[in-house]
C-alpha cells in the first residue's frame, strides 16, 4: 500500500501547471495535498458535495482543454457517483487524469468499511467505463516508476492507487479547518487561469 502523503507528494512533484481537483483523504489538511502542495493557487478542493470532484474536474477540463487537470478522488466518493465515470468518458477530455485513492474505508468518518471494498475491481470498472488508459499502483516504487507514463498519456486516464487508510474520528466542527477551500478556489482560480470575467 502507498502512504497517502507520499502519493500526493509524488503527484505534486510532477504537476507543472496542472490544476488539482482534490477531495477526501487526498485533500486532508494533515496528510493530503495541502501539506505538500507547491502551487496552491492551482488546487481546487471540492468539499461542498461529496462524490462530485470528478464532475467538477470534467467541467474544468472541458473549459480549459490546453491545461492538464488531475482529479484526486476517493473510493467512497466515487462509488456514491459511479455514473460520473461514464459521464466523464463520454466527453473524453484528453487533458484529464482521474486518480483514485482507494483506502477501502470511509476514513473521515471513523474507518467503516466501504461496501464491496474487497471485491470491487477498479481497473476493470475503469476499462469498462471507457477510459483511454488505465493504470494501477499498489506500492510507491511502482508508482514512482510508472506515474510519468500515466500523466503523459492521452486522456481520459484513470489511475488506481491502493493507499493506506488514515482514519479520522473527530467530528467535523472540531477538525483543523482547511486554509484553502472550495470558496477560495472559486474566488481566485479564474484569475490564476488567466480568465477575465
Amino acid at each position, binding site marked *: 500500500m502507498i502512504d497517502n502523503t507520499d502519493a500526493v507528494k509524488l503527484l505534486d512533484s510532477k504537476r507543472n501547471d496542472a490544476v488539482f*481537483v482534490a477531495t477526501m483523504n487526498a485533500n486532508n489538511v494533515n496528510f493530503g495535498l495541502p501539506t505538500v502542495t507547491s502551487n496552491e493557487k492551482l488546487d*481546487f478542493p*471540492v*468539499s*461542498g*458535495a*461529496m*462524490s*462530485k470532484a470528478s*464532475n*467538477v*474536474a*470534467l*467541467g*474544468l*477540463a*472541458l*473549459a*480549459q482543454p490546453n491545461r492538464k487537470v488531475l482529479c484526486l478522488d476517493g473510493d467512497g466518493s466515487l462509488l456514491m*457517483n459511479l*455514473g*460520473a465515470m*461514464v*459521464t466523464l468518458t*463520454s*466527453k473524453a477530455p484528453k487533458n484529464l487524469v482521474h486518480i483514485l485513492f482507494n483506502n477501502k474505508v470511509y476514513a473521515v468518518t471513523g474507518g467503516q468499511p466501504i461496501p464491496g471494498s474487497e471485491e470491487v475491481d477498479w481497473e476493470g470498472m475503469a476499462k469498462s467505463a471507457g477510459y483511454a488508459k488505465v493504470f494501477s499502483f499498489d506500492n510507491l516504487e511502482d508508482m514512482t516508476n510508472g506515474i510519468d507514463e500515466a500523466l503523459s498519456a492521452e486522456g481520459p486516464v484513470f489511475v488506481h492507487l491502493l493507499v493506506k487508510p488514515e482514519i479520522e474520528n473527530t467530528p467535523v466542527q472540531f477538525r483543523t479547518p482547511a486554509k484553502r477551500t*472550495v*470558496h477560495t*478556489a*472559486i474566488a481566485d*482560480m*479564474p484569475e490564476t*487561469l488567466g*480568465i477575465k*470575467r
Partner: protein
Amino acid sequence: MATQEVILHPASVVAELKKNDISHVVWLPDSETNFMYQLLTNEPTLDLVPVCREGETMAIAAGLWVGGKRPIVLIQNTGIFEAGDSIRGLGLDVNQPLVMLVGYRGWSRHGLTRDSAARFIEHILHAWGISYYLIETDDDADRISLAIEEADKTQKPVAVLVGTEFGS
C-alpha cells in the same frame, strides 16, 4: 376568439441561449425537453454535456464556470430532488450564477395535479431561496434571459420551469 397556441419550440429556447452566450448545456433528457435534443446537438455554438444523474450537472457546471465558460443545466423537476446536495454545496454555497432549465413534470393550469413532482417542486425552490420563472410558450421564452440576468446579478442559481412539452 383566437386561442393561444400553447407550445414552446426548441428554437425559441436555443435562441435565448445563444443570445446570452451560453457555451454548454449540461443535461439529462426528460419528456418535457425531449425535442430539444436534435436541435442542441446540431447547434455548433453549444456543447452538450450529457450526464448519468442530475446531481452531476451542477458540479460539471461549477467546473465549467470556474474555467471561464457559461453553462446552463437542463433537467426535470424530479432531478432537482435528486440533485439536492449538489445544488446546496456547489450551487448555493459557492454562489454559482447557474440557470437551471427544469422540465415541470405534472404542471397543470387546470386544477390540482396528482403528480408529486409538480406539487413539491415550487415548495423546494422556495425552501432553498431559489427564485424561478415559468415558461410555457414561445412568448415566454425571453424569461430565460431574465433568469440569466438575475443569476449574473445575484450570483445565485435561478430556475426556469418549463411547463409544457416542447413542440417540434
